[in-house]
């Protein structure tokens, strides 16, 4: 029982980790919390569903196309809405993302309705392996886990070793000086939104395949992803992933041993507790500005 709860916790945590990664990427460059993150991903999942079911194309075409859609969606939202804000404050931008969330939610409900759909996926959730005595993990869980870790590594390397990645970090710290370096800040922000939207979309595909697809798909994962990101310190990619796993495991253990009804609540209790002890999150390496 215990080992099974841990394993399922890690599996569900991987999807939280992906959402947390998506949020952290945008936060890292613009200090904006993107509340539209979940519904951008949800819409991309619907597009994948549309390509798969209505157009009848295979997975090999549908997922890359839907990811491409996700990238464009992110870039367009940044270009069309956030950039239009004149002399924006971070708070104002956050409110804009809230507005975007509602628009996207409405769009999906209008186009596809709110009934639950079966989202086809090449890997099954019912093919299981017994990795520990009495504890099983499904193929889908393994794919989710592997994908989350792979993305984390890729993104980590991108931010550490590529010029573009470092430029993204520089942009977050100081837009004006980044411009003086010749960094085209607007382009960087657009790119960030695109990449982040793709990461979120991949999470949505995985979540939709364990669950069913409807416009409320990403409501819970987004909240959990956000919490995981806060737990990890909001700017740290490994932190976001670790936060996702920690959250998933704790939540599952609580659900298994204490109460399923309060499963979601405990996650937030844990966050409050950790933030009391380490206000900047578990993994943040935030430099304190000298005055």
């Amino acid at each position: 029982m215990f080992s099974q709860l841990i394993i399922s916790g890690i599996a569900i945590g991987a999807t939280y980790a992906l959402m947390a990664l998506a949020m952290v990427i945008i936060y890292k460059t613009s200090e904006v919390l993107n509340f539209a993150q979940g519904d951008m991903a949800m819409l991309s999942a619907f597009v994948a569903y549309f390509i798969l079911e209505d157009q009848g194309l295979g997975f090999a075409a549908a997922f890359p196309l839907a990811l491409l859609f996700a990238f464009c969606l992110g870039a367009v939202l940044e270009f069309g809405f956030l950039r239009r804000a004149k002399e924006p404050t971070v708070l104002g931008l956050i409110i804009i993302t809230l507005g975007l969330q509602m628009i996207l939610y409405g769009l999906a409900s209008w186009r596809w309705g709110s009934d639950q759909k079966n989202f086809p996926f090449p890997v099954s959730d019912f093919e299981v392996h017994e990795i520990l005595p009495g504890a099983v993990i499904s193929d889908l869980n393994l794919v989710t886990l592997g994908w989350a870790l792979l993305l984390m590594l890729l993104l980590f390397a991108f931010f550490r070793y590529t010029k573009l990645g470092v430029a993204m970090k520089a942009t977050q710290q100081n837009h004006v000086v980044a411009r003086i370096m010749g960094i085209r800040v607007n382009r960087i922000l657009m790119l960030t939104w695109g990449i982040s939207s793709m990461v979120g979309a991949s999470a949505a595909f995985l979540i939709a395949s364990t669950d069913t697809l409807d416009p409320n798909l990403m409501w819970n994962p987004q909240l959990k992803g956000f919490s995981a990101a806060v737990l990890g310190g909001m700017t740290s990619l490994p932190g976001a992933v670790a936060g996702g796993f920690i959250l998933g495991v704790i939540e599952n253990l609580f659900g298994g041993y204490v109460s399923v009804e309060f499963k979601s609540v405990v996650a937030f209790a844990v966050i409050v507790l950790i933030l009391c002890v380490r206000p900047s999150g578990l993994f943040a390496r935030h430099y304190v500005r000298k005055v």
Partner: protein
Amino acid sequence: MLEVRNIETLYGLVMALRGVSLKLSENKITAILGANGAGKSTLIKTVMGLIEDQPDKGAIWLDDKRIDGKDTEDIVRLGLAYVPEGREVFEELTVLENLLMGAYTRGGSHGKADLKMVYGLFPRLAERQRQLAGTLSGGEQQMLAIGRALMMRPRIMFLDEPSLGLSPLLVREIFHTIRLVNRELGTTILLVEQNANMALSVCHHGYVMENGRFVLAGTPQELMSDEDVREFYLGVRSEVSVKGFQRYKRKKRWR
């Protein structure tokens, strides 16, 4: 070379520059002296395109191209580098990453050689290249800011108050490096300073700015021998009365 023709810059309704003209001479150091709020930094920011929709009037020419109204990102690519006031290094990037950001606009293989050149000028940065820039001392951060600008291999470098908040010894070191950069790399430098003594000791040509316009210009020797500059900027009192107090308050001639 860079030529500023009669520009006016507004902050909202406040006019910060009231018709400023300036011509930089190639491979020389030009200094602008002036008190707080005279408009020195505003002039540089206007040239760099950092103040939106400004200059309101006038024109800025680089060689035979007009550059006012262009985006900062494009102006930088023309070979103008700006070391902002208060250093403004990327605190959460390492020293090395900061320097690489300086070379952001330059593709290819120049990076290594330029890095060597900067480390040659500032050996201390080489020792600390893996350290976060925010953990450096003020003097080191200033060196980093200058080094980062030099990574662009700029034609013209703007230095805004490089002596701000540094000890006299460090100030001397920084100014020594500025002279070195100018001589060895042939970089044209525009220096904005409150520390008139230091600025006049390195520059080839100087301007004095007050209330958004230039009130005086000349070689450093001319400026240093000017009585108003001596009293108001260099702090040399020209005449002390026998009783030990000043009999009258000097008025600036240019008002």
